[in-house]
């Protein structure tokens, strides 16, 4: 009896998955430029939120420092695009990932000794360290003004290169985000992911069984940091600049908001949350101008109290099968 049910589930899941991907892929062909860009940004922020879901949703570690990884990815990409000419897409991604991995190693080593609230606070403080360094080290990082650079060409190394158009950029981002989703989903279902979830459920017992909990947590933070860095690279390529504002703690806070709004522990939830948040921002900006965070913040508080599972919380079990 069990097998056919699993099989139907798998068919529905992959069917739904393909429909969503096809719709997202077709979007730039139908949407006007403003909304095309909006959608691309949702995907990028969604990737950032999804990366932190590995910690928040699957390992039970609330990270308030994802802006550090995002920002280091951004500045890493900037370094590659400014120093190597002609600007190379894959080198930008490589540099960005190295930057984010460096930050993640540093943060992971120190903060995984702590749990719960202490973890949240230390990740926040670490991200502010990176912020202060980037903000004050003007000669290298451009300080408050940040760095601007040219967008690299979409290339397959040694074979083919063509400048990004709006559509290809969207498809490139979509491909990266989809691949990241599939990898992250595979990871959460692997034995490694199961250990992370058991740490979330009962850390003491996981340790008692004999798992080196700290090492698992460090790997989780590193992994999460890498994908956050990838999001930073994508953002840098999309907007052609890197600025210290993106290392500021508010970005980490927004990442957490995306997760909570969309539903933690679902991977797709955070992307939906990012979309929901950005739509709310768009809608309220029309009435409240730059003070849109007043109504959005109130909605967020209400969701924390009344809808802690988030928008996709109802589908959590289903999405993780």
């Amino acid at each position, binding site marked *: 009896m069990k097998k056919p049910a699993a099989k139907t589930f798998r068919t529905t899941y992959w069917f739904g998955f393909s429909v969503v991907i096809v719709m997202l892929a077709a979007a730039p062909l139908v949407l006007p430029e403003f909304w095309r860009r909006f959608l691309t940004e949702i995907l990028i922020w969604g990737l950032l939120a999804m990366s932190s879901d590995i910690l928040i949703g699957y390992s039970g570690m*609330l990270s*308030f420092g994802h802006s550090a990884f995002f920002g280091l990815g951004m500045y890493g990409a900037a370094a590659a695009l400014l120093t190597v000419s002609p600007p190379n897409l894959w080198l930008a991604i490589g540099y960005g990932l190295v930057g984010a991995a460096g930050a993640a190693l540093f943060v992971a080593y*120190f*903060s995984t*000794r*702590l749990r*719960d*609230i*202490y973890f*949240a*606070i*230390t990740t*926040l*403080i*670490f991200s*502010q*360290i990176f912020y*202060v*360094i980037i*903000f*004050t080290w003007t000669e290298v990082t451009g300080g408050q003004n940040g760095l601007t650079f040219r967008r690299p060409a979409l290339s397959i190394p040694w074979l083919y290169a063509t400048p990004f158009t709006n559509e290809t950029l969207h498809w490139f981002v979509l491909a990266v985000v989809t691949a990241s989703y599939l990898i992250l989903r595979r990871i959460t279902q692997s034995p490694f992911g199961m250990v992370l979830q058991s740490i979330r459920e009962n850390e003491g017992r996981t340790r008692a069984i004999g798992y080196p909990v700290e090492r698992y947590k460090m790997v989780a933070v590193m992994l999460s940091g890498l994908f956050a860095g990838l999001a930073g690279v994508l953002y840098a390529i999309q907007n052609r600049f890197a600025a210290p504002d993106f290392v500021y*703690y508010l970005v980490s*806070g927004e990442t*957490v*908001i995306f997760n*909570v709004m969309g539903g933690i522990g679902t991977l797709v939830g955070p992307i939906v949350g990012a979309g929901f948040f950005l739509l709310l921002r768009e809608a309220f900006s029309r009435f409240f101008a*730059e*003070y*849109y*965070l*007043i109504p*959005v*913040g*109130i909605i*967020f*508080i209400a969701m*924390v*109290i009344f809808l*802690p599972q988030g928008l996709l919380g109802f589908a959590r079990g289903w999405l993780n099968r």
Partner: protein
Amino acid sequence: METVAEFISSIPYDQIIIQTVNGIVAGMILALVASGLTLIFGIMDVVNFAHGELFMLGAYIGVVVLSATGSFWLALIIAALLIGLLGAALQIVTLRPLLGRDPLTTILATFGISLVLQNYALWQFGPVARKIQEPFTGSFQLFYLEYPWYRLLIAGLSAVIIGALWLFLKRSTYGIWIRATTQDRVMAQAMGIPVPRVHTAVFAIGAGMAAASGVLFGPLVGVNHAMGLDWVLKAFIVVVVGGMGNLGGSIAAAIFISLLESYASIWVSPAQAVIVSFVVLILTLLFRPTGLFVPTPK
């Protein structure tokens, strides 16, 4: 010998003494902010992300009342009372429903509150920094500086407020209830202590203390909507370094960290001196994660 003497004579003693005074003054203010935070944390397991915003709103109320009445002391008292009330209201509306849930959800809720309050202040008062006039302008000669008496007064007043808090916790009925709730919430409830009301009171007291420090500190720096974050970050560091939920530890840690930052600012810019406190935090976490100023746990 020659080099040693040269080294000793090259130490800027005057600057060190000035920075020591500065550090103690900043440390007392920080202790006032952090003791509210640690009180709230110790009793409710709530990390109050909005603490810096309460500090900032307190300073703004100080600005408004001061310009309306001209009395600094009235501004101080009204700001503390109003923000205390605001704190009680916030606690009832947002934190009370979360009682008994994962403590992490309270970080989320208070983070939401901080966003709302910060943007409210920006909306209401605009991005330009406001100034609070100090209540008196006397100063004394400290080496080459005219050092304002007001700064010493702040340190003294902070000490008085913290002392009053300590007495309140030690002696009054409410204080005893608060300490009982800290030790064992369920048992305290069983003994008939109105725990929800105690929580609200504690949040109000913490908020009031944050507001008072905001008004006291207002004359030294401009009052603007983003001033909260620096303080709440520093207060977090203090609370971790001092040992979570430990009042004496936070005060010692506040002064320790502020002194280090003051000394560091002899050589680097104040923006970079902040990193010193981050380093202290990292070292603490590495070697003594329970906090520097607490007895070694058995």
